[in-house]
Structure formats: C-alpha cells, structure tokens
C-alpha cells in the first residue's frame, strides 16, 4: 500500500531554485525510499524528480513560485516533511 503525501511549498529564496538548493534537495531525499517530485501548482512544465538536479533546474522556479511537493511510497510522509522544511527555511539563504 503506497501512501501519497502532498504539500504546497513556496520558493522563498531570492535566488530561486538554483543549483545549490537543488543539489541539497537531492541529498535530503537520498536516505528515503519514497519517490519525491516537485511540480508547478499550475500544472505547467511537468514534474521534476527530486533526485535529479537537472530536472529541478529545468523547473526554473524563481522566488515566489508555488510548487506541489509529492511523495509516494513507504516513508513518503517523512520525506515530504524533510524537504518541505528546507523550503520553509528559504534554503538557508
């Protein structure tokens, strides 16, 4: 039984979702087994695998962009919480 957990995150950093936070998200996602994706709230541009820097960069999410963070699998809830917290801290920038 796969749980699907979703939450909305906002890109708060003035620098947008660029290389450094993308790399950090990959690192944060790695200990979990759940699949994690980010997608634009308006549904445009498909969804980005949180384990691919390229995929996240292609989202080109600037400051203020609202994204849907979705986790699927066993530890989805914890995975989503961890990554969402990172967004809430504005990527420490």
């Amino acid at each position: 039984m796969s749980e699907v957990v979703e939450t909305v995150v906002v890109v708060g950093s003035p620098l947008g979702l660029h290389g450094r936070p993308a790399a950090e998200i990959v690192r944060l996602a790695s200990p979990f087994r759940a699949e994690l994706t980010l997608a634009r709230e308006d549904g445009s541009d498909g969804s980005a695998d949180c384990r691919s820097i390229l995929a996240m960069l292609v989202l080109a999410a600037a400051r203020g962009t609202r994204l849907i963070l979705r986790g699927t699998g066993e530890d989805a809830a914890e995975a989503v919480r961890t990554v969402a917290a990172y967004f809430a801290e504005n990527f420490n920038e």
Partner: protein
Amino acid sequence: MAVETQTIQAIPVSPGIAIGRVLQVHAAGHRPEARRIPAEGVAAELRRFDAARAATRGQLAALQEKLRGRLVGEADIFDAQLLLVDDRMLLSGVEHRIRDEHYCAEYAVYAAADHFASVLGAVSDEYLRERAADLRDVAGRLLENLSEAEAKTPEMDVRRIIAAPVLTPSETARLDRDKVLGFAVETGSATCHAAILARSMRIPAVAGVPGAVFENLRAEDLMIIDGFSGKVIINPGERTVEAYRLKKQATGKLVSELERDSTLLPETTDGFWVELAANIENAEAFADAKKAGARGVGLFRTEFLFMKPERIPGEEEQFQIYKSLLLAAGDEPVTIRTMDLGGDKFSTGVHHIPEANPFLGLRGIRLSLYERRDLFDTQLRALLRAGVYGNLRVMIPMVCSTLEVAETREIIARIGREFSEAGVEHVANLPLGAMIETPAAAMIADRLAGMVDFFSIGTNDLIQYTMAVDRGNERVAYLYRPTHPAVLQMIRKCVEAAVANNIFVSVCGQMGGDPMLTPLLLGLGVHELSMSPESIPVVRRVIRSLSRHEAEEAAARALACSNAAEALEIAEALLKRCAPEIFNMQQ
C-alpha cells in the same frame, strides 16, 4: 593553385606575434551516428556507458584537483560538471535510449544530453543557460571516453596556432601546452578563458575572429596572428611572413626592454608624473600587476563575488578577500568598485526581472541603492572593516545624480556609527569616488566634484552612452570612437571640475590602456591611467617618450576637431614622432 591571402582585423587580447600552421578545434557536439544495436547487446552497451561515466568522473575530479588554486573559477566549472555526470534524469534518459530504443551508447548520450541542453538553453535565466553549455561539455567528454581510440587529444606534431569558435576550459585543459603558438577564437574578449590563459602562457591571442573564417580554414593553412594590433593573416605571402618575422623579433626585444623598464617612473620628459595602476578582478592578477610596475589598483571589479548565485559571500568572507588584497598591496592604493551588476553583467539571483533595455535599466549604483540595498550594505560593511589594513578607496559605478552620491555617503556614515558603537574596527573617512560613465555625470562634474574624493572615468560605457552606440552591434560599431570630440570634451570637463575641487581623475576604461590615446589623455590632464596589467609597460614607455607640454598642445587641437578621425590623426602623429617603436607595434 595559388591560395588566397586573407587579412582580418580581430581584437588583440594577448600580446605577441605567432606564425605557424593552424590546428582547428571544432565546436564540441558533433553528432554521432544513430546506430542501433541488437537486443542481446543491450547489457554490454550499458556497461560501456558505465565505464565511460567512471572514466569521465575520474578525469573531471583530476582536473578539479589540478586547477584548484589556479585561475579563479576554473576548478568550479568542473564541480558543476561532476554533478551532471551522475544526474538521475540524464542517466535515465541515456539508459532508456539504450535499453528500450536499442540505440548505441554514443547516440544515446548525445541525444539525451542534447535534449536537456536544449531545454536549459531556451530558458531566459543566464545561470541555467550556462549549465546547458556544461552539459554539452560533459556529453562531449563521455563520447570521447566511449570511442575506442585514445582520448582524442588533438594531433600536435609541430607547434601550431589553435583556431576555434570557442575554447572551453575542458579543451584548453587538454592541449599540449608546449606545442601551442597562440590562440585565435571567434567568441570572447580580453577576459575570455583563452585570453587569460594566453597571457599567463605569454603567447599571442586574438578574439572576435568572424565565424566564416573558421569555416573555410584548412588543416595546412599558414596563419599569422598579431596580438598587438589584432590582425590575423591567413596564407600570407613570403614577403608578409618575412615582415612579420622581423616584427616578431623587434617586438620581442621591445617587450623584454619594456619589462626591464618596469621600475622606471611613468614620468614625462618634462618631469610630470602620471600614475599607472592596474585593472584587476581577482587577487591572482595582482602579481602580474606588480611585475608590470603598476602602482596600486585603479579598478578592482567585485562582480565575481555575485556571479555565482549559489554562493554569494557574506560580510565575513568578503572582508577576508578585501583584507588580503589590501595587505598584498602594502601602502599602494587599491580602488574597489562596488558591485556593478545589470546591463550585460547579468547575474541570476541578484537581479531577476528581465528588462527590455538592460543597458538603460536598473544597473550599477541604481541596483545597489534601490533593489539590493541589502547586498550593497553587506559589501560596504566588509569594505569599511577591511580598510584598516591598507590604502583603500571605494568607487560607485553608473552615477548619474548627486543624490546617489549623497545616499551612499549616508549609508557609509550610518555603518560607521554602528561600528563605532559596537567597537568594531573600521576605517574613518573612507575615500569615495564616482565613476563617470554617463553623460549626465560628466555634465554635472562640477557639482559631483565637490561631493567625492576622486573621479574614475569608465570610458567604455561613457562612449556608448554618449554616442548612443552598442559597440557589440557590428552595424554601428564604427561609431564607437574614443577620440570623438564629444568624448574628449567630457573628459576635459571632468578634469576641469576635478582640478577646481582639488580631486584627482583616473581613467579605468579601455581607452586608458591604449597607447595610441595615451598622449591625448595626458594632454587632457588626467592624473591616473588604470589598465590591464599587460598594457602597463607599453603605456609607461609612451609617457616617458613625450613631454606634457606637447601632449597638452595636441589635446587642445584634438578638442577643436570636428570629428573623431581628425582627432585620432593628431594623436597618431604625436605618437609616431615621439615613440615610433610603439607606433609601429600597433600597425
């Protein structure tokens, strides 16, 4: 069959003369055959891909190590590329093409990388577009590692001139440096990778060679590149080759003489002293500046601090950078320009909003005061603290109003008060200068002169704004003329205002380092010329070859000219008479 000689005017970016056969380095990304493999071959193909990845990873890591501590940023490029080699989306794109579509590894790598690079390349964000170039560079390396032959280091049987549309760090890192005579590149300027490398290798280089030239080059073409004048000659005749051989000898001797003279004072024959300072943008270049006999730094560009959005240094890190620069300079002045972003120096993350007309938009001091005051504040705090370690001057770019100077002074005063209250050591009475790069600033020079401690004329932008010309636009670039009477008159206005207010004038734009124009700047009364370190020895020789009196006389006549060509003739005639060896070098 007679081969046609072609003469091209390019931009000189590293001095010297090279005569030799050409080696063309083609743009990476040549497309491999879309070969299909049998179903049984998939596993083996995936293994080939893994092996190529491992080899690529190793090479990138080795390059990172080798380049660390060398040119600023060279190692960082490979950091970014290492991340891409293991990127999940890229990997799955390649594996899908091998496993499900039965393409060979070469084509799978090429197609996957090309797909993502195109997506990234189409984005408006500059940072992301750069990652597209990195991705193509990585794909190129993967393809090389897949090919059976030895990593394709270009055949360097004899010493050759490297001709390329662009030279990426990957490519230059791979060249057999002992065999390179010089570089000729299409894209680039004095600060492009190939130019910086050429100067540190002390070989000639030219940039801005029209692309069509590269398309018609053949392997055995003979080429002459003149890193003084920027001329490129393809398949020169015997007499031309002979003439350049002589010029090479003469200039070689001259260049060593000039270097030997680096301790001589930049003094005119009638005893007037002009300061010669260096324009640099990283601490490493400081050593070159010292060697060339620069007295201090007339322009330290700080944009590099803000170009990597993932790592904008905070107050402490900036403080350390400025402090070490000041300590290295001893008691010689170091003029640091506050962040000058916007226009063509777009940095993702500092300034997101796309503008229809960035050159007339939010850049320079405007950006600092009205959009990123937080970053400006941090930079000023770091500068004020670092100032106690040496002879610091700070200047603000793109000034067009007295209010900008007043506000900057207020911020500095406030920071000073905060530091005093908190007991933080900082410099009091920090010399603050205004860059004169807009016609507005030049026209109100008399008002600005009373508010600042010096002027620094940024001639590149001043000329563009004054002549209403984008020098990068080939159709109108001919109008970009430093000797246009309007430009000369603005410089003169600044000098007059400065003298009336007891402050000095420096010129830090390209005009300052052009020996052909040194006589005019001298004659207009400029006090300091700041330039790229490699131009200092030549300009010193020019200064020492003439008297201020004759320079002033020439400048007065130039100011009265009705067009740029006439004024330039006056400058050339004077240079030809007083320093013919320098005049000839520029031809």
